[in-house]
């Protein structure tokens, strides 16, 4: 009898748990497609407060506000480029993880290639300057005879 009651209680508890859990799985975003656009764009933009995190990653208050701005503007039908322009008007190119190519950023873009090129040139020159492996000195007939005696005559060994 007590077993029965315990079982009943367990079933009731499980039912309550299921009911309680049912409310949790509501999607966070009302519009998943919009949310994914917000996140893609947020990953391209730098958080101004943490500076080594993207807007999408950051939980800083300003980052949350800026993400809300992105969401609002995309919802209002603005394009990704318009939102990026909105951000750069206020925070400059600094906000972009992919800075545009212009006079002030040429070194930034060309720098790595330039360094590789310099490295290759340095490598080329240092390899060119190094003397090659020296030619083995020529043996006199007597030396060769002696070497053959010491090493054994390979022709004779092969024949045996």
């Amino acid at each position: 009898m007590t077993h029965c009651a315990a079982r009943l209680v367990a079933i009731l508890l499980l039912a309550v748990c299921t009911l309680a859990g049912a409310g949790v799985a509501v999607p966070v975003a009302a519009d998943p497609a919009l949310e994914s656009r917000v996140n893609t764009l947020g990953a391209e933009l730098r958080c101004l407060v943490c500076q080594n995190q993207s807007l999408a990653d950051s939980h800083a208050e300003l980052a949350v506000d800026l993400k809300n701005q992105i969401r609002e503007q995309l919802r209002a039908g603005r394009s990704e480029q318009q939102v990026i322009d909105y951000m750069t008007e206020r925070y400059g190119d600094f906000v972009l993880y992919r800075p545009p190519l212009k006079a002030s950023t040429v070194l930034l873009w060309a720098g790595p290639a330039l360094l590789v090129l310099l490295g290759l040139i340095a490598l080329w020159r240092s390899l060119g300057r190094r003397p090659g492996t020296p030619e083995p000195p020529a043996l006199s007939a007597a030396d060769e005879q002696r070497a053959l005696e010491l090493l054994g005559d390979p022709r004779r060994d092969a024949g045996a």
Partner: protein
Amino acid sequence: MSPRLLVPLCAFILLGALLGAGLRLKPREIPSPLIGKAAPAFSLPLLSESQRALASADLKGKVWLLNVWASWCTPCREEHPFLVALAREQIVPIYGLNYKDDPRAAQEWIQRLGNPYAESVLDRDGKVGIDYGVYGVPETFVIDRSGVIRFKHVGPLTREVWTRDLLPIVQQLRS
């Protein structure tokens, strides 16, 4: 000494100079694209009287400082005594943008620490702050007679920064 030995020495000195210069840079200070551009327009309720609003257009014709502050911001407390002293000198009016703050806490702050502001306006959701490219409170803007931003300082304003950076600009704009 042979010239070959001088190469590593020169390389070391160059590298040291480069790294030394790097230490002096302030990578956290983001250059504002708004310098030389019209200050973003706003019309916001006053902290002192929330039924009334102040618009940026009302300030056309005078040189003014826009100081972004909040009662939750610790560096703001650091700069506050200087702002109070500066306001007393009456060189230039300071307008406050109370950024994402609780108006009650802001009023209490003003009462306790003194009010350097000609007026403070409430930017409760921080939208105007975003328009001004605010990323770290406190920030101070110098705005000229025609409403163009001439200078921006990020971080607490001190007597030193004021005399070195802001005062010459303010004087030039007023003359």
